[in-house]
């Protein structure tokens, strides 16, 4: 406890010197990525990195035009593969804070300062921006199941709106995290296994403008996802319950 408090004080003191990287994984988001980059730059002081996950459209050019640094992946690695690329970039270039958000406009960049503030106050290593109201009944049921299975008391596992500190960046940039396919449970379980604390910050999100959720698009996909994640939980079994995540608002 002492240690965390001291860590937190140090963090607050050095806040101005900390380098922040906003990571935006994008695949075929040419219509929105430029606007998102501009809006992020308007509210957050730091570098902006767009990881172009082998898009077929002008995502890369639009992001560059908006002033972001762009990493182009030669072939598709998926949402987590792209986000991890950003985290590896952050580690390589010595950033202290990394935040991730989607390029499709469902996360509002204007919510970022509140998310960062919530993260700072909580003293947790990772903050997750959640929007409980957007969860459908099916998702709620699925999350209840995974909460039971993993013991991670998070409202929304899949939210890609997150803040990571240096330790979290280091853990997630490692080889261990490279075989994960989604950025949800596997990532959270890995973070917990390493003893990092999570904190949830309620935010406002919009429904996706283009296309539906990749995971919850059809029943077959849902079944596949549930099975995949259950197996992942099984593989991670034994790491359970060592560190409880910071409860919402408990330390704010």
């Amino acid at each position, binding site marked *: 406890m002492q240690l965390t408090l001291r860590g937190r004080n140090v963090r607050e003191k050095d806040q101005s010197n900390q380098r922040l990287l906003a990571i935006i994984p994008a695949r075929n988001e040419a219509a929105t990525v430029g606007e998102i980059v501009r809006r992020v730059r308007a509210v957050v002081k730091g570098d902006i990195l767009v*990881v172009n996950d082998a898009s077929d459209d002008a995502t890369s050019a639009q992001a560059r035009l908006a002033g972001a*640094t*762009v*990493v*182009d*992946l*030669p*072939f598709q*690695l998926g949402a987590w*593969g792209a986000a*991890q*690329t950003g985290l*590896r*970039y952050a580690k*390589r270039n010595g950033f202290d804070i990394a935040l991730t958000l989607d390029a499709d406009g469902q996360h509002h960049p204007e919510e970022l300062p509140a998310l960062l503030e919530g993260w700072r106050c909580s003293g947790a290593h990772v903050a997750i921006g959640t929007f409980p109201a957007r969860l459908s009944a099916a998702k709620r049921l699925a999350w209840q199941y995974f909460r039971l299975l993993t013991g991670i008391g998070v409202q929304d596992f899949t939210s890609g709106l997150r803040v990571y500190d240096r330790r979290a960046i280091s853990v997630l940039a490692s*080889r261990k995290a*490279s*075989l994960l396919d989604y950025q949800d449970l596997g990532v959270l379980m890995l973070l917990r296994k390493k003893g990092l604390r999570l904190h949830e910050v309620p935010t406002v999100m919009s429904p996706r403008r283009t296309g539906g959720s990749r995971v919850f698009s059809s029943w077959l996909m849902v079944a596949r996802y549930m099975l995949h994640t259950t197996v992942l939980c099984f593989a991670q079994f034994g790491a359970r319950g060592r560190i409880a995540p910071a409860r919402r608002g408990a330390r704010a």
Partner: protein
Amino acid sequence: MSAVLTAALIGIAMAGAIFYLVRRDHLHGSYALWWLAVAAAALLLGVFPQAIDWLGRVTGIAYAPVLPIIIGLAMILLRMLKMDIDRSRSERQLRRLTQKLGIIEQELMQARAMQRPAAIAEPTAPRTKTAQVIPLPKSGDA
């Protein structure tokens, strides 16, 4: 007699094929060892099928011919598991390599972009250096 001959022929042919393919050196280290062991087993069981009966008696299995099938199947399953483990490792390496390639490419672009204005600022320095001409010997010279 003919059954023994058939078994021997199959065993020798299989072992010979494996030996030939391993000798062509397309296999990586431990894989070659595995396949040589398979070839040796095929040769042994083909030429001495009575070894199976002996093995059946030793292990207490009444119907001995099922034994090589069970062992073979188990070996194949283990082999497949090992293959998937290797594939997972390759997949991890491929993903990390892809990520690194993307990052390095970005750094290269950035470095080039930074170099370009410097080259414009002092354009004379590298340009004035005339290329050194080294006369190449012609075919008739020597």
